């Protein structure tokens, strides 16, 4: 019988603290036209948005629950509260944010990160942003970074209306329709032509209220020749009732522009994470996705890139860690439309302690996408036989002048590699930790240093366990 080391689950204690829901406004649980209208009224939506919400709700009610992914039977929409407004307006100074909420974000290290390494920060608490700030020098370049509600009615209202849910339409799938009906919060970013934002912007989403949903909308427009790195972080404390996250991210990457979108997702294990992300890339533009999925009870997450312009590019680097009670269905989608477009998908997944990890992808090369190139690589590590790991990659190629490659591997930690490291003086525990850290290296080296260190520390900590 092979001796095995025990790999512990990710330590969530730094995320798993709860605040009382003091004086917060909670809309009635469930999903009806009346609730959607009430929500729209509370948010002072323009008239078109109220109609949009009601139309989306109608689509939601007509669409079937997907039967191809993890079960979401535990999610009862009649019990989900779609809007919880904290008892504060959005502030531009940390000192003005109410003490309890401020403490939450301080424990998560957000103000410290802002001081050290960010060009701007948005912090969402339940359904609304409580803090938004952008450095003066970045704002002086014409960069707009604001909450979606302000953007919807302010100077950029026309731009928002032109782009809002045009890339991810409510008809896309049931939870895109849900998002259209009850979205609130999120960020709007506009980077003008030729502007390069040297250090990243970050939005952090915290869902504190039990039994609630978070439906933030992120809309980013990077104009011609501009450059941006945007970081998204999310966490929540664990409750005994289901929480839901059905956010939506729409990214417009202009001609010769570049956008890197990094996500570290750390939702609690009662969370249903049914998120939709999509990017439209114009001629010569580049979209880079870096994605770490560590939390959630169930995840459906497949950022999609539409390479519309010729010479546009996409890179996706992702890691998924599925532990006990988790069923994480993650991956990426790309559609090649323009000539000479290229895509590269590189993912790693780790399953342990009964966790289920599924890599799901699609590469579509349309007929006119002459000389398109695509490469997909996915590797999965099974740490025990209680767990499960599946890969479901699809390719649909409709031009002869394409070059598409795909490779995938599933396996366990090699005994030979462990033996090699042990013969050089490492303990078995350290050897296995070293191998798993190395396995995740492709993602950590794509993250900003602070985030890479945090991810590596998490993995290393969790590999410290008993042997037997």
């Amino acid at each position, binding site marked *: 019988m*092979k001796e095995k080391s025990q790999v512990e689950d990710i330590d969530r204690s730094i995320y798993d603290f709860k605040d009382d829901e003091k004086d917060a406004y909670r809309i009635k649980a469930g999903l009806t036209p009346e609730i959607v209208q009430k929500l729209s009224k509370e948010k002072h939506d323009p008239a078109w948005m109220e109609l949009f919400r009601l139309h989306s709700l109608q689509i939601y009610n007509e669409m079937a629950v997907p*039967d*191809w992914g993890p079960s979401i039977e535990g999610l009862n929409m009649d019990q989900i509260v779609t809007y919880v407004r904290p008892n504060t307006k959005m502030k531009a100074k940390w000192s003005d944010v109410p003490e309890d909420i401020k403490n939450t974000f301080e424990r998560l290290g957000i103000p410290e990160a802002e001081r050290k390494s960010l060009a701007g920060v948005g912090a969402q608490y339940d359904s609304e942003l409580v803090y938004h700030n952008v450095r003066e020098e970045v704002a002086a370049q014409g960069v707009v970074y604001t909450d979606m509600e302000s953007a919807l009615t302010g100077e950029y209202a026309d731009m928002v209306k032109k782009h809002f849910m045009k890339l991810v339409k409510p008809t896309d799938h049931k939870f895109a329709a849900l998002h259209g009906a009850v979205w609130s919060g999120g960020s709007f970013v506009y980077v003008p032509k030729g502007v390069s934002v040297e250090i990243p912007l970050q939005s952090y989403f915290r869902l504190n209220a039990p039994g609630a949903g978070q439906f933030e909308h992120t809309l980013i427009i990077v104009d011609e020749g501009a450059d941006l790195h945007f970081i998204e972080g999310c966490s929540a404390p664990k409750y005994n009732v289901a929480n839901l996250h059905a956010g939506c991210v729409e990214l417009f990457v202009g001609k010769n522009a570049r956008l890197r979108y990094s996500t570290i997702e750390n939702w609690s294990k009662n969370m249903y994470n049914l998120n939709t992300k999509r990017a439209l890339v114009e001629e010569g533009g580049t979209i880079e996705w870096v994605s770490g999925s560590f939390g959630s009870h169930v995840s459906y997450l497949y950022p999609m890139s539409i390479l519309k312009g010729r010479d546009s590019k996409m890179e996706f680097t992702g890691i998924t860690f599925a532990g006990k009670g988790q069923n994480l269905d993650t991956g990426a989608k790309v559609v090649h439309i323009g000539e000479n477009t290229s895509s590269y998908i590189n993912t790693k997944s780790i399953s342990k302690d009964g966790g289920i990890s599924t890599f*799901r992808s*699609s590469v579509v090369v349309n*007929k006119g996408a002459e000389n398109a190139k695509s490469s997909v690589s996915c590797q*999965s590590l*099974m*740490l*025990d*036989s209680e*767990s*499960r*790991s*599946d*890969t*479901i*990659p*699809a*390719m*649909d*190629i*409709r*031009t*002869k*002048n*394409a*070059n*598409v*490659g*795909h*490779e*995938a*591997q*599933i*396996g*366990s930690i090699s005994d030979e590699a462990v033996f090699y490291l042990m013969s050089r003086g490492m303990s078995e525990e350290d050897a296995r930790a070293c191998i798993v850290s190395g396995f995740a290296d492709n993602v950590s080296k794509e993250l900003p240093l602070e985030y890479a260190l945090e991810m590596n520390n998490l993995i290393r900590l969790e590999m410290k366990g008993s042997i037997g």
Partner: protein
Amino acid sequence: MKENETLKINPLPSKTWYWLHLNDTAVKWNGDVQPCMVTTEEPEQVSEAGLDIKEMTTGVGTEADALFTDENLPVLQFTAKAEDGERIIRLDISGEDKENTAGTVYIAAEENAHVTVIEKFTSGKKAQSDLAFRTKLYAKKNSTIRLIQINMLDEGQRLLNAVGSVCGETAKLDVLQMFIGRGDVYNGIQTELEGDQSELHTEIGYIGQKQQTLDMNLVVNHWGKKTNCDIQVDGTLKDAAKKVFRGSIDFKRGSSGSKGAETENVLLLGDDVENKTIPLILCAEEDVDGSHGATIGELDEETLFYFAARGIDQETAEDIMTKAKLEVLYHHIQDEETERIVADQLTKVMSNDSQ
């Protein structure tokens, strides 16, 4: 089953996005089937205890079973025994002059037996016709079954080829399929590697031309310990040919020490070709090794340069490479008579490919 009923065939063991249209294939097929013609020199030979027919699912899926239920359809049964030595069973299968035909063959290899089954699907007299054929294989302990299937049906003639197989302990199944006809093909193979150390080796070669459709579904379930499978699919698509390849390796819990690998190479030569590929690895066991790889595209510049440097133009180079992919396979048939037939058919198909 009704006439012209829509069947959902070649189901993917684990569904994905519906918009990809890969979860299964819907085909209209006439359920009013007549017996197909199966010609063989081999007498049917069933063991004294009767043929041990195991329940097994074919890769085409259960909806297609309705095509094989009519009592009048031919059901051939063969049992290979160890004392028979290296037995070869040749079956020529055709729809003859009928529009819609079907038939089944059961083959069991007893312990330590070795049998080669060669099935040739040849054109019937009807320009527009459908042929559904089901092959069920049961390889018992330490036996070997080689299944060689050659499809030569003409344009307008569709083949639904359903294969189900079960391998016992240390049993080995080799499948070699060549789709070198001009008609549409719906091909599904499902294999249960039940016994410890059982093996499946599959090689598939094809050429798709004009409006031809090739729709394939391979499912390998690893149940036993130290089971092994490899799947190699190699083909060329020309003109407006369409191809779907679903290949699934499923490591069940308990299949420790097992290995599975699949590779697919597709040469795209037509302006209107459509190629869909979905290679799945499903894994509920830690101690396994699964991999798949796919390369899809046109001839690379290095290869074209090699030919050009020898005075060979691109079109001829593409023909040479297309034929070479298939010639590699027919040399693996190891049956002179069949190799000759395949070589003739290949010449015929290649010479007419642009008509």
